[in-house]
């Protein structure tokens, strides 16, 4: 039947059919709930009642005026800081493991493996590492004579850095693999030409490697920034936001607002704000990274 139609129509039909299905799924399961979320953010729905009263911008006012809600963002700073260090380390390892090092495939695998582990499993695992009285970290430090009494997950001033360091362990390998792929796409004659011109290793890195993997650095920073803003599983499992709220993140706050305090309207507004925040931070990042380029 199809073969009787002209070729152009056939092509359009096939393309249309192939695109329609994923598009339909995307609209139903991604865009419709997102729009529903935005709609709920203007109501005071409690999660149970059949009527959802429209209260306008009140939820948004609450999000921005209540320091209890917005203040938790400062806990995410630790994840940013560690995220930057993580990217630097990833580039370093990618360059090292891109050279003709003996056993480089083994080391690549070794560094990438943590990424495959399930997030909650990783959290449990590190629960035992960071345990104050019987944790392996404190045991090791004790044996080295460095003091074994540190409460890694119980000290408000650095609990977020402790948690972020787990993220470092887990995602560094992933960043590294992306950098590796980018490094391998740089033609080696560029380096040869540079060597002939007498460039040293740092100059090669600065003027050949970095410009060539610039887009990839941007991508990795994107992943780091969104990851830092949306961090959830580690503090949820390991500290439950403690001690006294010092490691609570924005996503945990959203969860509490919805399911503990039955305020789905406010929680939706917080989610929308988070979404907007991510978009904003990324636009700023793109603007500054692309300034003076192209």
């Amino acid at each position: 039947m199809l073969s009787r139609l002209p070729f152009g129509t056939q092509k359009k039909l096939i393309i249309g059919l192939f695109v329609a299905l994923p598009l339909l799924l995307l609209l139903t399961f991604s865009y419709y709930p997102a729009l529903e979320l935005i709609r709920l953010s203007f109501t005071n729905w409690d999660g149970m009642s059949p009527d959802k009263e429209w209260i306008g911008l009140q939820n948004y006012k609450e999000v921005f005026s209540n320091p209890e809600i917005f203040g938790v963002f400062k806990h995410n700073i630790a994840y940013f800081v560690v995220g930057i260090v993580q990217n630097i380390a990833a580039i370093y390892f990618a360059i090292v493991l891109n050279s003709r090092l003996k056993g480089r495939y083994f080391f690549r695998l070794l560094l990438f493996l943590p990424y495959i582990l399930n997030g909650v499993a990783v959290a449990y695992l590190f629960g035992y590492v960071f345990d104050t009285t019987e944790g392996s970290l404190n045991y090791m430090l004790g044996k080295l004579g460095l003091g074994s009494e540190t409460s890694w997950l119980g000290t408000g001033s650095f609990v977020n850095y402790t948690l972020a360091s787990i993220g470092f362990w887990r995602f560094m390998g992933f960043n590294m693999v992306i950098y590796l792929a980018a490094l391998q796409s740089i033609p080696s004659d560029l380096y040869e030409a540079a060597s002939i011109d007498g460039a040293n290793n740092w100059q090669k890195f600065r003027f050949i490697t970095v410009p060539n993997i610039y887009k990839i650095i941007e991508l990795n920073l994107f992943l780091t920034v969104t990851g830092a803003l949306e961090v959830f599983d580690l503090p949820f499992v390991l500290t439950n936001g403690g001690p006294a709220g010092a490691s609570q993140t924005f996503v945990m706050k959203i969860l509490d607002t919805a399911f503990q305090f039955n305020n789905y309207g406010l929680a939706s507004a917080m989610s929308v704000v988070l979404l907007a925040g991510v978009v904003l931070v990324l636009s700023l990042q793109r603007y500054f990274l692309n300034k003076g380029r192209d």
Partner: protein
Amino acid sequence: MNKKYLLLLTSAIMLTVLSACGGNNANNAKNGNAEPTNTGAEATAAPTASGNGAEEIKGKIVFLTQRTDMIGKEFNDYKTRFEEKYPGVTVEFEGILDYEKNSKIRIASGKFPDVILIGPGIPNSDFPKYFAPLDDIPFSDDIRFKDLKAFEGSMYGISSGNSTVGIVYNKKAFEKAGITEVPRTLDEFYADAQKLKDAGIVPLASNFKDKWPLDAWIYDVPTMAGGVSDHQNKRADSDAPYTLDGVYGQSWSILRTMYEKGLLEKDIKSTNWEKSKKDVAQGKFGMYLLGNWVINQVIENGASTEDIGFFPFPVDNSGTAKAPLNPDWFYAVNKDGNAAAAKAFVKWMIEESGYEDFAGFIPTLKSKEPKLPQLAEFNSFNPQYIEQGPPNDTATSIQNAAQIDQGAVVQEFVLSKDPQSVLDKYNKIWAKAKKTIVK
């Protein structure tokens, strides 16, 4: 080109069907009272018939349970026994995790199993929208907590079991520390805790980090301290519900004192609940301040029954033993489901299943004695039981509006250098939220 329109049409239809799913349910919930559907009519007719005889009790019922660990084990046995008694009925057990959240979503959708468990999350005024009144279940004796899940004179929930809160302790650990008799006053309690500490045992496992084990200090210790259980509701009348000389201050100060004297875990900010059960079982930790439900869990973790004891927590120096009595989950029956059979099932669960003994609860039937030996020991101290009263929606609404997580408040209170400033901070938030709720 026709195909293209056809495709658009189908997608449009699919989407409307999908979105209609959501919309209809909301309508159902809204109009549930006004227009009884077929099943609804059956359900309302059933109660009058069920009093006369068991012949109406037939069909299939589903029980949504939180005890996923009992599925395929004890529940299989319950199914056989119940279906033997009521040959026309098939029972199915559906287990879900994170019960409170998930069940709420299903109840709100209007489509949920015939027998469901309800906790504190649903306001009493919403009960007639979803559940059938259970006043006509002919229990063989008076039951506890009749009024807790009631609205306008009808009872909608029956407690599946009850628990009290006190000190669960390892007798071997007490022996090792040279404690011959359990403490009857708060001073004796501190002294005994010190003895445990001197013997190298962690006196009281607070499980501070996990927050929920602190619930006893929020709900039960204040009840014992004040002698009445409505302190959480009373907060609705006050602009400063958390004061140092009030029941909360009294309760939390005990925990703070324990912390300052080093009578809790070595690092209370890094505690491990699962491990603490093993430690209490092995006598490395001396005591828990928790509900009696924990006793069976400690025994499961390797303690022998005779080594674990239970006594009322001496909240002050008066020497009179007091204990709260709290309900667990409540059985509720879907008003649009197979209500007659569901009610028979609830009655059977309370009177014959043996679930309360399995779970280590104090039975809901007033005349039934608990089987757990530790509860017998507990009762030998003759504690004055204080029954939990119905919750007050106003206090809950204020707390939700203020976004006060009382567990976190206790944590802050204990860890802070200046506990008064912590109370002041939360009183301020409370007063602000109260203005928006109580007008």
